């Protein structure tokens, strides 16, 4: 029951994420759609945000979309080219770390926004092996706020992760502090169906917004645990300006948009 649309899921996701980025934030980007979101935000609503990569690049000028966080395109015209040690120290640092918003993806997510990007099945003999943490565990451990990209499928939104790679809100309020983790946890999960938030009081995932043509119930059906749907609102579709920026100025070759 999807209405006819003049934009793709990926475009909606990139724009939904871009809208979450606040002006002045330091945006940690991974590979793929998170990079487009950061590029779009900088061009639309958060011009004073800083795009920042775990590979050590600070404030990259992304004339072309990078296809990896180590792409030479992230090295061009930065404020500083360092290395991994610099980048992660900036996130673990008490003064700069709290200005960072991290954008992450994963294979599985649980109701508290904890992530798995390592294996499906038993760790010792996995059914499916993924890339592993990369910097995701580090970013999720250090920074004050994360935004997570997911494909919305029941087997990916699970009560129990097969492997716990990156910390979210752990088991609810105070969970991070109890473990000795700094900063805050995930602020939003952006999927191909809608946007999930985390309750202030219970730190559990709830449905914050659903995309045009998607119903809250459909989202619940694609989620492996119960979502509070009571606070859900419709998410406005991409504006023509947003789409124009994304398509013409972020990924004209559609390398990420597909």
């Amino acid at each position, binding site marked *: 029951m999807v209405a006819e649309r003049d934009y793709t899921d990926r475009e909606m996701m990139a724009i939904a994420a871009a809208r979450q980025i606040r002006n002045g934030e330091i945006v940690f980007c991974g590979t793929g759609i998170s990079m487009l979101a950061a590029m779009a935000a900088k061009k639309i609503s958060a011009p004073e945000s800083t795009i920042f990569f775990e590979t050590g690049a600070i404030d990259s000028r992304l004339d072309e979309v990078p*296809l990896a966080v180590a792409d030479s395109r992230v090295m061009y015209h930065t404020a500083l*080219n360092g290395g991994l*040690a610099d980048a*992660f120290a900036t996130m673990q640092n008490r003064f700069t770390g709290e200005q960072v918003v991290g954008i992450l993806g994963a294979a599985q997510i649980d109701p508290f926004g904890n992530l798995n990007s390592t294996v499906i099945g038993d*760790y010792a003999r996995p059914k499916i092996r993924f890339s*592993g943490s990369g*910097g995701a565990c580090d970013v999720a*451990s250090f920074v004050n706020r994360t935004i997570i990209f997911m494909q919305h499928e029941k087997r990916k939104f699970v009560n129990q992760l097969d492997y*716990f790679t990156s910390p979210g809100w752990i088991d609810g309020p105070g969970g991070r502090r109890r473990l000795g983790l700094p900063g805050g946890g995930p602020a939003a999960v952006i999927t191909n169906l809608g946007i999930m938030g985390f309750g202030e009081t219970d730190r559990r995932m709830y449905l914050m917004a659903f995309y045009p043509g998607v119903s809250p119930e459909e989202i619940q059906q694609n989620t492996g645990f119960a979502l509070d749907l009571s606070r859900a609102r419709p998410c406005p579709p991409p504006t023509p300006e947003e789409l124009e920026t994304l398509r013409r100025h972020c990924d004209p070759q559609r390398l990420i948009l597909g």
Partner: protein
Amino acid sequence: MMEKLGPDNLATLKEAVAMLVADGCSLSIGGFTINRNPMAAVHEIIRQKRRGLHLYAHSNGQGVDELVGAGCVDRIEIAYAGSGRFAPTCVRFRRAVEQGRLQVEDYSNYQMTLRFMAGAMGLPFLPTRSGLGTDILTKWGFPAALRRQDETLPDAKVITLDNPFGTWGGAAKLVLVPAINPDVTIIHVQEADRFGNARIQGLTFADIEQARAARRLLITCERLVDDEYLRHRPEHNQVSFLHTDAVVQVPWGAYPTACFNSYDYDPEYLNDYRRAAGDDSTYEKYLKEKILAVRDHFEFLAARKKKSLARLRADPATGYATGLDRR
């Protein structure tokens, strides 16, 4: 300062690899996903049929996948096996793990970086706040019994420590990650001199830490430059001759990965690789025809179309191949 170099040609790379990389040794390579992997050296290791390597990697991408794919690696400690959009998970790595042919120990990128940094600093460990509460701390790929037996492994994957300074620094708990001192590190850089001083352009990734942590260091470089040139602006050099054992000039030595200011990654090669890697028989063919059948990196490059290399040349204004078709 003594010369660390034989004749500056590919025969040297053959000799350097033969001399420094032994069966069963521990190895780390520089670069990150699809950038500045020391591919000429990686392919030479494959051609020399090294076996039983213990590989230390953070997100070293293409180089790691080819070493794993060629059967050189028994054990790997790694943060991320992927090549960006070209292979969100490295294909041969994935297959080797799923088939139980590769012993894996997982860390995060920062943890691996700190482990190299600890090795470079002469310390047994460094602390971080990363990973508290996660399975990275509790699920061990190398079991405790193996760790106790094998003296090339620390007894613990990580150790959690209550902050001995109480609340100082705002951290209640720390994760201590054990140092790595690889038997050999190989990095590829833009410029080096025959004494072993080197300069990296663009991001350094964890190359500096990897280089300084190693017992032996092999540097391949795009350009062998005069030491007077590197000494003119010594604050731009990152590795000194104190750490270096061998230097070999290998133009296009990171190909098919990128080398900032020199050339871009080759999307066509990387896409072809992903496709070939997806199936055992096509991968065997790739390995045999593309890597094993050629004598050295020069022949490997010669097998590529002239034009396909030419369009990868870096635009001097941006450091990459501006406008390259990357589909």
